[in-house]
């Protein structure tokens, strides 16, 4: 499982440019599913056929990760940029970023600012070790995207890495596809695009499938660190069954089925009410004539930072929970 997580987390894939992640997933699941396709937004849709009498179940995890996009190159070779997805400005200072071609950049700020509170993204730049605009343009172009660097490591049963939002969800679905649970239902393993910029890929993916039921597999925040906001989810105490976030209220039947599946199989679980952030379920549930949707979330600390942290037991239990749910 850790190998799958590591491979996916270290693959380059900012919003709108997820192809490498899709290719890595195809390598992992081919032969285990009956059909693999993509759509114009780049969503990867892997279908495991049922026996015709079951339901269509869509399981969605997004492939894209937060990053930066180059908007300007100055004559000394420094890059200006904008955010892709939600980036807290103070968190990205001093970080390394990596472009698709491997070019590494360092983010720093205009030091004549008098108060660090005023350090916004338009006061920051990326240094890619170029001495001039010409040198810089050999390495990157306007519109090129970079992702944050951050090793994937294991420690005391936890995984620390960049991009666990949402490669951990992708890893859960890959593992589930490999386990190939026996079921009458038709399972759509959907790896979506552009979640971080507004749940965009999931919308067209769901429209192309129109499933009977859908789950978003994503991360959720926790309430177990010093001085954090109140939230009744803790790392290591089981996958979280979504009740609501800012984008969706889980369909009660979907939520209850998840709880039943967990209880029946003695899988630890927690209930998630996330105060900030949304998930793909937000755009799936209002697709076409409406799709009953919910979510299974992996509790994660430090979401949208370069050292997001999850507990491997929660990940394994999420796979188990989904396995019994789809049956």
């Amino acid at each position, binding site marked *: 499982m850790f190998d799958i997580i590591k491979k996916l987390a270290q693959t380059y894939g900012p919003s709108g440019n997820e192809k490498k992640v899709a290719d890595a997933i195809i390598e992992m699941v*081919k032969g285990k599913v009956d059909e693999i396709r993509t759509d114009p937004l780049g969503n990867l849709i892997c279908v495991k056929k049922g026996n015709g009498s079951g339901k269509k179940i869509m399981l969605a995890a997004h492939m894209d990760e937060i990053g930066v996009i180059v*908007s300007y190159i*100055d004559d000394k070779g420094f890059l200006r940029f*904008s955010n892709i997805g939600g980036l807290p400005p103070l968190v990205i200072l001093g970080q390394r970023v990596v472009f698709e071609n491997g070019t590494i950049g360092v983010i720093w700020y205009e030091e004549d600012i008098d108060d660090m509170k005023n350090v916004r993204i338009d006061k920051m730049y990326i240094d890619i070790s170029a001495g001039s605009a010409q040198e810089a343009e050999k390495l990157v172009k306007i519109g090129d995207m970079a992702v944050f660097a951050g090793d994937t490591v294991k420690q005391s049963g936890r995984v620390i890495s960049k991009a666990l939002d949402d490669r951990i969800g992708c890893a859960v679905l890959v593992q589930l596809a490999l386990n190939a649970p026996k079921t009458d239902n038709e399972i759509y393993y959907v790896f979506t695009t552009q979640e971080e910029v507004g749940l965009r890929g999931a919308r*067209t993916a769901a429209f192309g499938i129109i499933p009977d039921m859908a789950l978003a597999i994503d991360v959720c925040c926790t309430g177990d660190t010093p001085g954090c906001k109140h939230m009744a989810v803790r790392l290591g105490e089981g996958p979280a069954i979504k009740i609501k976030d800012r984008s969706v209220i889980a369909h009660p039947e979907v939520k209850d089925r998840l709880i039943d599946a967990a209880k029946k199989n003695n899988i630890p679980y927690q209930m998630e009410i996330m105060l900030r952030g949304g998930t793909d379920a937000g755009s799936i549930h209002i697709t076409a004539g409406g799709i009953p949707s919910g979510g299974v979330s992996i509790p994660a600390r430090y979401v949208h930072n370069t050292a997001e942290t999850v507990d491997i037991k929660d990940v394994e239990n999420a796979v188990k929970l989904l396995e019994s749910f789809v049956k």
Partner: protein
Amino acid sequence: MKDALKNLKQLTSLDGISGDETAVRDHIISLIKDYVDDYYVDNMGNLITYKKGNGDGPKVMLDAHMDEVGLMVSHINSDGLLKFQTIGGIEARVLVGKRVRIGENRVPGVIGLKPIHLQSARERSGAVDKKSLTIDIGAKDREQAESMVEIGDRVAFEYDPVEFGDNKLMAKALDDRVGCAALIELLKDDYEFDIYGCFTVQEEVGLKGAKTASFQVIPDIALVLEGTTCYDVPDTKEHSMSTVCGKGPALTFMDRSVIADRELVAHIASVAEKNGIPYQYKKTVSGGTNAGRIQVNGTGVKVAVIAAPCRYIHTPVSVIDISDFENMIELAKKVLETIPVSINLYREQGGKTNV
């Protein structure tokens, strides 16, 4: 190109505040009806035109929005002055001291302000409170005002287009009559594949018309023709200038509504380079366009934006460089000529390929 500029000037002198685009739409119909195979107006007011292609290419949607920012009469005071709401993004400082015209009959009015002699020092230097502004239509009381205008009437700026300086055009509503005028030109040519030219409504209040238009068309590819922000005035750091007036039409890689299709944008840039058409990238990730709505329609659409830089956008005196407008038409034409052979539509993978 003479025609294009004439059409553009004519279009900016018509009023089409979001939700009330009839005058603009009727004029566009009169200009395009001989060039298209079919056209209709949908329930929202979008004008959807169709040109059958000669071959087997993709289905291409071209979008330009007919609506412009403006005001709406919301209340008539007992003294005959009108209170109003803004439609689309307009800031109060832009409104003060402007001539306007109201409703179908174009009743003249002015957005007044307290004379400088009577203002306190704070009033002179502080921001303008939108709520304190009223429109004066010269009526002596509410009764007389009610005989001239109605609540709900749209209010447009009374500013005629003017060509000036070095090939510049100053006008209201250049956002997005530049797109409309460009789209009219594009519809005059024949193409290999089916073209849906969509003149959409209510973009300025949340990209609404494009949502229903693209639902009807279900395109493979969409090209959005826009007027975009331009901030190349003194004291701006170059990296904060979104576009530069006169340096060619702007391509969007990302804004708040969309990440443009990378393959399509790269294709447009290469077409521009091959044909020696100047172009630039919009250097800030700001604003939104209909591309954001169209992209997530159905099972997904490959989208890109070609936009003319507009200085002082969303004011009655927005300014374009006429060469940017002309190059926008030229570039879009060349792109349409080359799309069928060069774009991967994922058709071969679309639900069929087994790995």
